[in-house]
């Protein structure tokens, strides 16, 4: 006779388990959540843009542009983000087919501007020595993420990511992103064709709309799921298709322009991440959410708080931008020493 309680009882032994996260750390996390300007919604996990089919991207002018086989160098003057198939570099497991923002080098300082999905432009800057030490942030790629909010869905499920749906941005066409899969349905929205890619049964699928060299993907769970907040009904789907809009900013990044009743919301996940290591381990997550407490101040004036797991937080208090550095201790130390948030430009600001 199997008694699962007996089988699993060792999980409750205190001898092996690490100690609980200290209450002050939980308190700091709770405080940060409260500080956010928006309701927190579905948090897309960090994605590594490694789809093999994304080797060629169209530029924002519509011309075919293929960049492959060589690293994009600092100071690239193209106006649109480009992809590259990176060669083996000082970062041993650099992801392939990643999106590299245009960068400029200013007297030994690399300036790396990235655009969040609400149009906020964050200029990171760092000493080129960071690259020399083996961590060239400009070559690690950029992935934005966000979520859409729809206010009249279920709100009574504790802990559920109610009322929001994760929005992912991928380089490449929908066909490339979905690896040649045939859409189950093609609908018409402000961005043109919105394709629904279905997976057999009630498995999750997605809505996909293209803009320039990017594809915007919205999580979709076929009807038949058990959770109202994640089941995209026909009504919900029609609303998403009609309300999903976007444009490209001057640097070629996607800026979402969601129409009523959708609003753009921040997520529990970063607003974007620099550095998508294949194992997700070496990266700098960018949060536009203000600052929490600090342990000390970095050489570039950022508030530093050592979080342990997941990493080290650096925050530009005046600008409201927090960076969470994940990776080995050497990487975290180098970022603390060398990285600064040079400027933040808000939409309309």
């Amino acid at each position, binding site marked *: *006779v*199997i008694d*699962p*309680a007996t*089988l*699993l009882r*060792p*999980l*409750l032994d*205190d001898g*092996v*388990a*690490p100690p*609980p*996260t200290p*209450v002050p750390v*939980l*308190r700091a*996390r*709770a405080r940060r*959540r*409260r500080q956010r300007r928006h309701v927190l919604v*579905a*948090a*897309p*996990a*960090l*994605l*590594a843009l*490694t*789809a*093999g089919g994304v080797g060629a991207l169209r530029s924002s002018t519509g011309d075919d542009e293929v960049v492959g086989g060589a690293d994009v160098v600092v100071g690239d003057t193209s106006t649109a983000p480009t992809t590259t198939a990176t060669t083996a570099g000082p970062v041993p497991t650099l*992801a392939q087919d990643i999106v590299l923002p245009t960068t400029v080098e200013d007297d030994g300082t690399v300036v790396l501007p990235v655009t969040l999905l609400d149009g906020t432009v964050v200029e990171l800057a760092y000493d080129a020595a960071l690259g020399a030490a083996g961590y060239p942030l400009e070559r690690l790629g950029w992935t934005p993420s966000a979520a859409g909010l729809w206010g009249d869905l279920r709100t009574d*499920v*504790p*802990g*559920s*990511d109610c009322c929001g749906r*994760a929005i992912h941005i*991928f380089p490449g066409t929908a066909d490339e*992103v*979905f*690896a040649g899969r045939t859409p189950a349905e093609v609908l018409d929205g402000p961005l043109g064709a919105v394709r629904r*890619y279905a*997976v057999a049964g009630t*498995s*999750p*699928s*997605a809505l996909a709309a293209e803009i320039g060299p990017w594809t915007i*993907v919205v*999580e979709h*769970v076929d009807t038949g799921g*058990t*959770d109202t907040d*994640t089941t995209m009904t026909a009504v919900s789907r029609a609303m998403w298709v009609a309300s999903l809009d976007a444009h490209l900013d001057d640097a070629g990044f996607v800026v979402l322009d969601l129409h009523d009743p959708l609003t753009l919301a921040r997520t529990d996940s970063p607003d974007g991440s620099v550095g998508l*290591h*294949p*194992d*997700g*381990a070496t990266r700098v997550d960018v949060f536009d959410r203000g600052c929490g407490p600090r342990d000390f101040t970095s050489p570039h004036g950022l508030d530093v708080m050592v979080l342990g797991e997941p990493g080290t937080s650096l925050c530009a208090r005046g600008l409201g931008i927090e960076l969470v550095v994940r990776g080995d201790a050497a990487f975290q130390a180098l970022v603390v020493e060398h990285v600064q948030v040079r400027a933040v430009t808000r939409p309309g600001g």
Partner: protein
Amino acid sequence: VADDGFSEWYGEHHRRVVAALTVVCGDAGLGRELADEAFVRALERWSHVRHMDNPVGWVHRVGVNLARSRARRHAVEQRVLGRLAHAAPVAPPELRPEVWAAVRGLPPRHRAAVALRYVADLPERDVAAALGVRRGTVARILHDARRALADQLREPDDPPHEPTVPGARPHGRRPAVPTNREA
């Protein structure tokens, strides 16, 4: 800092919540992360949560919902991109590998039910509420899960589990028939 009993309550229940969510999501690292997030949410609402009939049940329910959301996203991402960067699940060192393999082999809903009933020690009524199913469904899921675990952990020489229909013959094996009968 006065915390109206949160610290004590958290210390008392943290281990069990982590253990249950480890089983729910099949990953010790993620289980701990989800537990932390669930406790953060409890802390945010502590003035309300502490007056609930079963605050621990609420935390488990939050954790299960978080795990489901995470699993859904993971599935979407895998389907969208095919090759994703997700670290291998972390096995809890406390369990024997074969036990962990058997538990991880259960369907997600079965795993969640087992976790909530046998690790979190919630009554079936609360398990049903957390999973959004009827109590009878929980009983059936738990029964199926126990059978599946028994099958997975059965030693090669053990007899298969008894059939549930009276009079039916056990599946899988014929009665041993002596081949060298004595004359």
